[in-house]
C-alpha cells in the first residue's frame, strides 16, 4: 500500500481557498512549535503581534504605512511573474526609484527655482518610474536578446543599486550640516507626499492612493485587455503564444518597464512619504518581500492588496514584540518563510489529490 498524487479533474476555487486557510493555520502552528522550542509562549506572542499591529489608530496607521511599499513591490513582481520572468530585482528597482526621487528633490529646486513648487512631486514620481523601468530593462534586454538568466542579473543589479545609494549618502550627497551622520540633506517640505487623513490615520501618505490606483489599472489591463491576455498566454503556454505570433522580445521589455516602474514608484512613495531624505535604513527589503506578496496572492492584483496588508500586520507586529516582549523582530521573518512554505506545499493539493493504492495496482 502506498500514497500517490492523482490529478484532479476540476479545480474548485472554494477548495483552493480552504487549502490556503489551512496552510495559514499550519504555518502558525509550525511557528508556535518553533517558539515553544526556544521557551517562548506562542499565544502571548501572536496576541502581542496582533494588538501591536491593529490595536489602535496609530498601530493601524503604522501597519498601513508598511503595507504601501509592499503593495507596490508586490504588484511589480506579480506582473513580471505572470510572464514567468523571474524579476528578483524589485529591490534594486526600488533603490533606483529612491535615487531618482532624491536627485530631483535635492537638486531640482535649486537649479530651476522659477518652476512652480507643486510641479516637483509629479516630477519626482515620473523620475522614479523611469529610473526603475530603466533598471528593469537591463535584465529584460539581456534576457530578450541574449537569453541571459534574469534571476542572476536582477539579483546582482540589486547589490549594485544599493551600493550606489550607499556611495551617495556616505560620499558626495552627505549633508555637510548632518553632524557627520551618513545621509543627505532633508528634502524641501513641498516635495513631501501629503497625508491622506492626518487625523484618522496618522502618517499614512498618498502612496496608499497610488497603490490602490495601480492595482485597479493593473487588474483591468491584465484581465480585460489584449495585451494582458498576451502576457498571460506567454506565461502559461509560451509555445502556443509563439505560434500565435506574440512577440516575446517586445513583451519581455514591456513587462519589465511596468514592473520596474512600479518598484521605482514604491521607492518614491517610501522616501517622499516617510524619511524625506536619503539615509541609511531606506532599503528595508520591500523588494524581496514583494516576491512573497506576489506569490501568496497568486499574482492576482487584488490579492496583492490583501496579502501586503497581512504581511504588514506580521512585520509591524514583529517590531512590536521586540518592544513589548523582548523578542527578536526576526520572528516575523521566520513566520513569513513558514507561511511561504506551507502555501507553496499546499498548492499541489489544489490540482492533485492524495490516493491510497494497493501495491502493484497503481497502473490500473
Amino acid at each position, binding site marked *: 500500500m502506498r500514497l*500517490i*498524487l492523482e490529478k484532479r479533474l476540476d479545480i474548485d476555487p472554494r477548495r483552493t481557498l480552504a487549502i490556503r486557510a489551512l496552510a495559514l493555520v499550519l504555518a502558525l502552528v509550525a511557528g508556535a512549535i518553533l517558539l515553544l522550542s526556544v521557551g517562548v509562549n506562542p499565544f502571548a506572542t501572536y496576541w502581542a503581534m496582533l494588538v501591536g499591529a491593529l490595536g489602535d489608530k496609530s498601530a493601524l496607521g503604522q501597519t498601513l504605512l508598511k503595507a504601501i511599499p509592499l503593495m507596490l513591490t508586490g504588484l511589480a513582481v506579480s506582473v513580471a511573474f505572470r510572464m514567468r520572468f523571474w524579476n528578483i530585482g524589485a529591490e534594486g528597482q526600488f533603490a533606483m526609484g529612491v535615487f531618482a526621487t532624491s536627485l530631483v528633490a535635492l537638486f531640482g529646486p535649486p537649479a530651476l527655482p522659477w518652476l512652480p513648487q507643486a510641479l516637483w512631486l509629479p516630477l519626482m514620481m515620473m523620475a522614479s518610474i523611469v529610473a526603475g523601468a530603466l533598471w528593469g530593462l537591463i535584465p529584460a534586454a539581456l534576457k530578450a536578446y541574449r537569453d541571459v538568466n534574469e534571476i542572476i542579473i536582477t539579483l546582482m543589479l540589486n547589490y549594485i543599486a544599493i551600493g550606489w545609494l*550607499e556611495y551617495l549618502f556616505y560620499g558626495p550627497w552627505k549633508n555637510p550640516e548632518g553632524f557627520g551622520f551618513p545621509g543627505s540633506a532633508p528634502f524641501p517640505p513641498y516635495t513631501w507626499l501629503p497625508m491622506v487623513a492626518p487625523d484618522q490615520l496618522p502618517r499614512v501618505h498618498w502612496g496608499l492612493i497610488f497603490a490602490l490606483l495601480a492595482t485597479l489599472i493593473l487588474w483591468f489591463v491584465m484581465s480585460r485587455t489584449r495585451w494582458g491576455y498576451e502576457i498571460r498566454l506567454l506565461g502559461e503556454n509560451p509555445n502556443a503564444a509563439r505560434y500565435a505570433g506574440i512577440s516575446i522580445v517586445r513583451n519581455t521589455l514591456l513587462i519589465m518597464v511596468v514592473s520596474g516602474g512600479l518598484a521605482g514608484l514604491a521607492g518614491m512613495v517610501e522616501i517622499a512619504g516617510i524619511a524625506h531624505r536619503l539615509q541609511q535604513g531606506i532599503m528595508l527589503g520591500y523588494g524581496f518581500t514583494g*516576491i512573497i506578496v506576489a506569490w501568496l496572492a497568486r499574482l492576482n492584483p487584488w490579492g496583492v492588496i490583501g496579502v501586503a496588508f497581512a504581511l504588514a500586520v506580521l512585520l509591524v507586529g514583529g517590531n512590536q514584540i521586540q518592544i513589548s516582549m523582548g523578542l*527578536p523582530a*526576526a520572528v516575523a521573518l521566520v513566520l513569513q518563510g513558514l507561511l*511561504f*512554505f506551507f502555501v507553496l506545499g499546499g498548492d*499541489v493539493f489544489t490540482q492533485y489529490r492524495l490516493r491510497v493504492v494497493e501495491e502493484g495496482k497503481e497502473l490500473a
Partner: protein
Amino acid sequence: MDFALLISILAATIRAGTSLLYATIGEIYTERAGVLNLGIEGMMLMGAVTGFATAYHSGNALLGVVVAFMAGAGMGLIHAFLSITLRADQVVSGLALTIFGVGLSSFLGQRLGPGGGALVGLQGPHFSRIPIPGLSELPLIGDPLFNQDLLTYAIYFFVPLATFYLYRTRPGLNLRAIGEAPRAADAMGVNVTRLRYLYTMLGGALAGLGGAHLSLAYTPGWTENITGGRGWIAVALVIFSLWNPARAVLGVLLFGGINAIQFRMQAVGTTIPPQFLNLLPYLLTIIVMIAVTGYEKLSRSVGAPAALGQPYHREERGL
C-alpha cells in the same frame, strides 16, 4: 610586482574563497541532479549560525561543523520535499528557503547565546591556521596553499573527489543521467526521486559547511547576514563553471581574488570609494553570465543539465 603582496593576496583569496567553493560544489551536485536550489544563501546562514552556536556551547569546533552539515542537509530536505514531492516551483521554493533561512538564522542568533541571549559578539572555538610542515615553506605557493585551516584543506580533497565521482564512477553517471534524461534513467532502473532527494540534501549540507567556514574560521563569530550575498554568488559561479567542479575552482579564485585585492586596495588607501570596490564581484558576475551564455550557445556539450528545473513525475508519462 612585489612578491610578498602577491603571496598575501593569494593567501587571502583562498581563505575568502573556501566558503564559496563549498557552496558552489554543493550546488553543482544538486543542479546536476536536475534540481535548481536558489536557497543557498539561507542554507549557508543556517550552517553558520548552528555551527557557531554548537561550537560555542560544546567548546568543540569540529562538532560545530558536523551540526552545520546536518542543518544544511535539513534545509535541503525542505527544498527537496517541496519541489520534488509536492511539485512546487523550484525557483519559488528556493527563494522561500532563503527568506526562511535569513529569518531563522537571525532569530536563532539572538536566542542561542548563553541563557537564551544573543550570539552576536561572542567568541568561541574556531579553526586556526595549521602550517603543514615542509610544504608550507615552499616558495611562493607554500604559505597561501599550505598554511590554512582544516576546512580549507578539506576542500582540496572535495574538489577532485567531485570531479572523479561525476565523471568516473557509476553513481556519478547515474547522477548526471537523472539531470539530463530522468525518464531514460528511470527506465534503466535508477530511482530518480530518491537520488534527487539525496543530492539536494548533499548540496545543502555542503552549503552548510560553507557557512560554517565563515563563522568558525574566516571571520570567527556570528553576525547577522554573515554570508553577505555569497550564496547568490555561488549560484552565479555554478553557471560560470558550466557545472564542472574543476572550473568552479577557477571561478572561486577569480571572485575570492577580487575580494582580496579590494581589501588590500582599501588598506593602501586608494581614491576609489570602497562602495565601488565592493560592487566588483557583482559586476563581474553579470559580465560572466553574459559571456557564458554566449559560449554555451556555441557549444551545447557544456551547457546546463537538460532537465534542470523540471520536475519529474513517473505517473505522468509523455502522451
